[in-house]
């Protein structure tokens, strides 16, 4: 047990947990005002359902010994996960740290299906997805599974988190289908400041995501921290230049997107590359995602908030470039193409292809299975009214008065606890 490591991992865990509310702001700003609560809830709800699924079942499937494909059931209900050390930190802390990754990965998918998926079907989907898709892939890469034995480099989750969520998002967008008024000129972001706020807090939290993935308070953490600071800066500069060349104006949504793409791309590489490589990697990662966004918007694929372009493609580019820029001199793990080891590139491509294939097939099966039991989409009228009112009974922005408190409270309407309601008001 190491106290410095434990302290840093306690902080990192809280940092990564904050990324999910940050994602809610990032996504929430990009949708129309009638759907903002629903879009944000799709991220927030993962904190609950996926968090519980992880503690009860998921951690065991991902990190119990098991075989090369999946863990086993020996850690169900966190059996045997206590204050003993796992590496140099308490086992429970390691479990919590990994939980935050599972939570945000599931939430990432929501960007592809906002503004039309039924909330209940979505919650069922991401909870099962976390167990059936995320946990095995996490086991392959971090839990002693076959990709880690093959030597695939994925420092903080380029394949496990971003390629995985990106592919699942693509499948979800296709299965759930496009919004009824897509493509239309009025599907515009309603609050770009939210999106910038979300991108900023995501960057802040990502220091825990990447530097925390050293699972130690040491030089490798500092290396990953440096990469996390410099790579998105590289992406932001290149993205801004592309914006200026293409449209003459550097856009704010572009800025927020660039930061996320840079963070996604550096995720698998963070602890393996030097600072100048990080800048180059971030800069290079801007190109494919920038043009994928433009092309996607002209197609019939309604990946509404471009999860595929930002996370799927950004994660793939990052995982591949890790095989180019990795440098043994930095942390002693492996060299990439630039440092005389072209074979690493093949290993990286294998990891991306395997994760993408598994995620794609399993996400498709899950969505079809859920779709057979319950409708995946909100009805046409609900979609037109907006999912805030139809799914949650709330509006984000009330501009005019005109709401009348109903004389019956919900509990009274259900014929119940009259006394409770009276007692409650009397207590005030």
């Amino acid at each position, binding site marked *: 047990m190491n106290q410095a490591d434990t302290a840093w991992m306690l902080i990192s865990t809280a940092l990564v947990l904050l990324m999910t509310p940050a994602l809610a702001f990032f996504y929430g700003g990009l949708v129309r005002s*009638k759907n903002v609560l629903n879009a944000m809830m799709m991220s927030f709800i993962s904190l609950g359902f996926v968090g519980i699924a992880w503690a009860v079942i998921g951690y065991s499937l991902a990190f119990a010994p098991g075989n090369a494909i999946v863990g086993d059931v020996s850690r169900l209900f966190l059996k045997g996960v206590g204050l003993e050390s796992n590496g140099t930190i308490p086992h429970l802390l390691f479990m919590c740290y990994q939980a935050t990754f599972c939570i945000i990965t599931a939430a990432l998918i929501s960007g592809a299906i906002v503004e039309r998926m039924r909330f209940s079907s979505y919650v069922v989907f991401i909870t099962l997805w976390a167990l059936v898709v995320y946990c095995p892939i996490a086991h392959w890469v971090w839990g002693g599974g076959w990709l880690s034995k093959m030597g695939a480099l994925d420092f903080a989750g380029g394949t496990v988190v971003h390629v995985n969520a990106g592919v699942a998002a693509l499948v979800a967008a296709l299965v759930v289908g496009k919004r009824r*008024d897509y493509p*239309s*000129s*009025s599907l515009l972001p309603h609050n770009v400041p939210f999106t910038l706020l979300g991108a900023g807090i995501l960057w802040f939290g990502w220091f825990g995501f990447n530097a925390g993935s050293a699972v130690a308070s040491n030089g490798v953490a500092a290396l990953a921290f440096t990469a996390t600071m410099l790579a998105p800066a590289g992406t932001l500069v290149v993205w801004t230049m592309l914006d200026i060349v293409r449209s003459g104006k550097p856009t704010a949504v572009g800025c927020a997107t660039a930061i996320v793409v840079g963070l996604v791309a550096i995720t698998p590489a963070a602890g393996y590359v030097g600072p100048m490589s990080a800048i180059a990697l971030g800069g290079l990662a801007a190109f494919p995602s920038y043009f994928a966004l433009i092309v996607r918007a002209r197609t019939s694929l309604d990946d509404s908030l471009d999860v595929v372009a930002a996370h799927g493609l950004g994660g793939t580019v990052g995982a591949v470039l890790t095989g180019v820029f990795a440098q043994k001199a930095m942390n002693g793990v492996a060299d990439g193409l630039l440092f005389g080891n072209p074979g690493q590139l093949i290993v990286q491509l294998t990891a991306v292809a395997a994760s993408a294939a598994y995620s794609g097939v399993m996400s498709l099966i899950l969505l079809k299975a859920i779709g057979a039991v319950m409708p995946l989409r909100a009805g046409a*009228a609900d979609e*037109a*009214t907006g999912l805030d*009112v139809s799914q949650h*009974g*709330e*509006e984000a922005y009330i*501009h*005019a*008065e*005109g*709401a*009348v*408190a*109903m004389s*019956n*409270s*919900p509990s009274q*309407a259900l014929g119940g606890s009259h006394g409770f309601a009276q007692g409650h008001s009397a207590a005030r």
Partner: protein
Amino acid sequence: MVLLKAILRPDKVDAVKEALVALGVTSMTVTEVRGHGKQKGHTTIYRGKEYNVSLLPKIEVEVVLPDHLVEDAVQAVIAKARTGEIGDGRIFLTPVTASYRIRTGELVM
């Protein structure tokens, strides 16, 4: 000259706008409004208490039309904005006695 004022479901505005532009209507004013007719409103819940929101979000489109376009414009709005459910909105026609272009000060007929 007639002022056509249409109160519409928010998700029907794009279709109505396109139909009016296709008729040759070049200028319009669009306002986010709230109101109600026969539509009942919806129920919201905040901190455990239920509220009936009777003033629903609508979009008001205003266009000033030469007399010969009025009938076509009314039919276009109805065709594009109708769902058949309560809450589809209303169209009001008002005679306009004069209109001035502010930039030039000229009287526009």
